[in-house]
């Protein structure tokens, strides 16, 4: 094996079979003043750091720095996004919900600390992708314990090699100049065709991405599904292109009469119309038990919420919330109104606040409600004339102050 004179002296390699062997050899070499460059072991050998008198690593500082960076980034990102940039309350928690941030903070801290310390190691140790690595010993990346040492200037390398072999070393050899130290660096080397191919890869990737990202989704760029992915379909709530104004459903023409069902009412909203209804309309239903029951059913479902079950405004929304005060249905004012007027109010709404219920309650049911209302008024009539006006009905204790 050709040996080359190194800049610093002669270098030897030796392989051992056990951690104890290499540890003893390192100690012996160092005791004689030789320099142990490095050891390559399948696993960390306890006591090797001390035997080689390695300085404590400075990498933990990089690790701490990157960890703190990750911590700061994570906290800043989460607090900024969820408390400042887009404040959104989730689950009744504070905007800066610290416990909820901990998992992400932890992960980002660990991620940056881990990646950062590995990157720092690469930078500090000068590791970078290489085409050729020095072939120290075939077992160095396997199960052997290999050391590389530099022989003390002035001593005979062959004597050292013999001593190493005496300590159980195999494959002791002078180290040839490692190829990394060759005169022409990676960048100065003459490029082969492979390099051009490699250099073309990123460009190809970028071009491919450009084509992919610049797809125009309004057109069919490349179809491999027979066009099934690009069907023409209407989106919901889209304007129709068929009818004028973009409407989808056309209203029936004026004067249209339904083929089955009731004829149009012939009244519109408003006070005059209500008065006219009072004059012109008669309740078409007789006060039978069935009509009465139906009227009560509808009244209690639709009217009692505000007017009270007995038409005396005794409904929680009036007595407790004091939201508004509807007309008292069993009062003289209402008793004196004709049926048609009441029917009109139920249909189109009252003179003040009441909204019309014509779209919710059928026409027959509205007449039956009027029927039931008359019965309510009869039931309330024997009482003294004025009292049913909103009995205080257990006023809410906290409402007054």
């Amino acid at each position, binding site marked *: 094996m050709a040996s080359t004179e190194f800049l610093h002296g002669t270098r030897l390699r030796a392989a051992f079979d056990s951690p104890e062997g290499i540890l003893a050899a390192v100690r012996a070499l160092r005791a004689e003043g030789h320099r142990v460059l490095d050891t390559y072991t399948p696993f960390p050998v*306890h*006591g090797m750091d001390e035997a080689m008198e390695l300085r*404590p690593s400075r990498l*933990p500082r990089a690790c*701490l720095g990157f960890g703190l960076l990750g911590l700061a980034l994570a906290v800043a990102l989460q607090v900024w996004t969820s408390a400042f940039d887009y404040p959104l309350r989730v*689950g*009744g*928690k504070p905007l800066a*919900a610290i*416990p*909820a941030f*901990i*998992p992400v903070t932890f992960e980002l801290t660990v991620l940056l600390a881990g990646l950062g310390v590995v990157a720092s190691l690469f930078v500090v140790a000068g590791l970078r992708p290489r085409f050729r690595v020095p072939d120290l010993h075939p077992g160095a990346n396997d199960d052997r314990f290999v050391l590389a040492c530099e022989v003390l200037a002035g001593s005979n390398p062959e004597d050292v090699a013999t001593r190493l072999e005496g300590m159980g070393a195999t494959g002791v050899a002078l180290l040839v100049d490692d190829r990394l130290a060759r005169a022409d660096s990676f960048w100065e080397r003459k490029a082969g065709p492979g390099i051009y191919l490699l250099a073309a890869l990123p460009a190809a990737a970028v071009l491919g991405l450009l084509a992919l990202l610049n797809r125009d989704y309004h057109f069919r760029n490349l179809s491999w599904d027979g066009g099934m992915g690009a069907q023409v379909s209407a989106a919901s709530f889209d304007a129709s292109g068929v009818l004028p104004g973009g409407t989808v459903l056309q209203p029936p023409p004026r004067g249209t009469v339904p083929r089955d069902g009731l004829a149009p009412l012939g009244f519109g909203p408003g006070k005059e119309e209500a008065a006219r209804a009072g004059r012109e309309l008669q309740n078409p239903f007789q006060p039978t038990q069935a009509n009465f029951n139906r009227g009560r059913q509808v009244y209690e479902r639709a009217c009692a919420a505000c007017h009270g079950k007995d038409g005396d405004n005794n409904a929680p929304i009036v007595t407790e919330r004091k939201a508004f005060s509807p007309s008292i249905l069993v009062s003289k004012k209402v008793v004196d109104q004709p049926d048609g007027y009441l029917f009109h109010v139920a249909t189109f709404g009252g003179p003040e606040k009441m909204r019309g219920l014509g779209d919710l309650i059928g026409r027959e049911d509205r007449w039956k409600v009027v029927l039931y209302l008359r019965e309510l008024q009869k039931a309330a009539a024997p009482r003294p004339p004025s009292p049913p006006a909103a009995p205080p009905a257990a006023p809410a204790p906290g409402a007054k102050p």
Partner: protein
Amino acid sequence: MNPQEETFYVAPRDLTRPQFPTLADIGLKFQAGAWIFFSFGVLFLVIGGVANPAQGWANVLITAFNLTAVGLGGLFLLAIQSITGARWSDPILKAHRAMPALLPFAGLMMLLLWFGAGHLYPWSRPEAHHDHLMAGRHAWLNKPFFFARILLFFSLWILVGRRLVNKGKGAAAFILVFGLTFTLANFDWIMSLEPAWYSTIFAVYGFSGMFLQGIAIVTVSAIVLRHVGLLPEVSRAQNHDLGKLLFAFSCFWAYIWLSQFLLIWYANIPEETAPMRILLRLPWAPLFYLNLILNFLLPFVLLLGRKAKTNENILIATCATLLVGRWVDLYLNVMPAVLKGATPSFGVAEVGGILLQFCLGHMACWPVFMKDANPDQELPQRP
């Protein structure tokens, strides 16, 4: 006096007698101290228990659980080192071997709870039979079965553990037995203090604390024994390894703690939140945060550096922090449920419980430790 004369003055000594106290002497001295502490501990516990039975029995539970945790921590460390064939810990195994001797004492204390179960466990009270929340749980949570389980767990631990300590065999069997029984023990002894509250991660939480406590005790013992010269083989490397374990499992405890807390805090389901709410409110909140500081923040900061992990003073300080933290953690797991929202207090019963932990620790472990030590050995050893 002539200074020269003083310099060369050598006190007359009887060189036939040992110059330093031997291990046997120290053992006798400690034994006396331990008995005194023991009687004081029992006395305080009884006084505290008479004043407030619930608090007294809760302290018996805390003491017993802490002793169990230390005993099992030693066994568990021994078992994983046996399984992995670890050799870094060979010099400090003396400490591991002595710790399981605590288990019989802890078991007796747990069985003693038979007389105080009514004060601690709502399910053991007669009115619990009318509580619809407990309707399905009586099959598992009833007094005879509960104490039969305690007996079973401790006999398993003691039997399997003895084989592991004496013969170095059965480590895998111990891990299996331990994993199942310790999970159930946590659910039984601590979580059933509030039978309507449950957390599926609770046993892992208990395990993380127990393991942390075990490592802390081992670290303290290794450092103290090395200082008096009984573990000459312990080196910086062991300290570093123990420091790394402490650091890692302090973080692990915090990880598990957060895993439990975060879900309860975020989901905010009433039946889960109720006990946590007490802790987050004022009389308990300082203890709640103290728990985090003692068990995670302080150890994390103290042990972050590599040099700190080999520094014995820092290690001892961290272990002290952690051991106090373990007690606070257990206190927070037990007391709010027992005191029913009353103000936390550190009274006579707590002092008694802590004294008992120390003296039982000595009384149980010293004889085991002396088995493979020379009683005539002097301390400190002459260089």
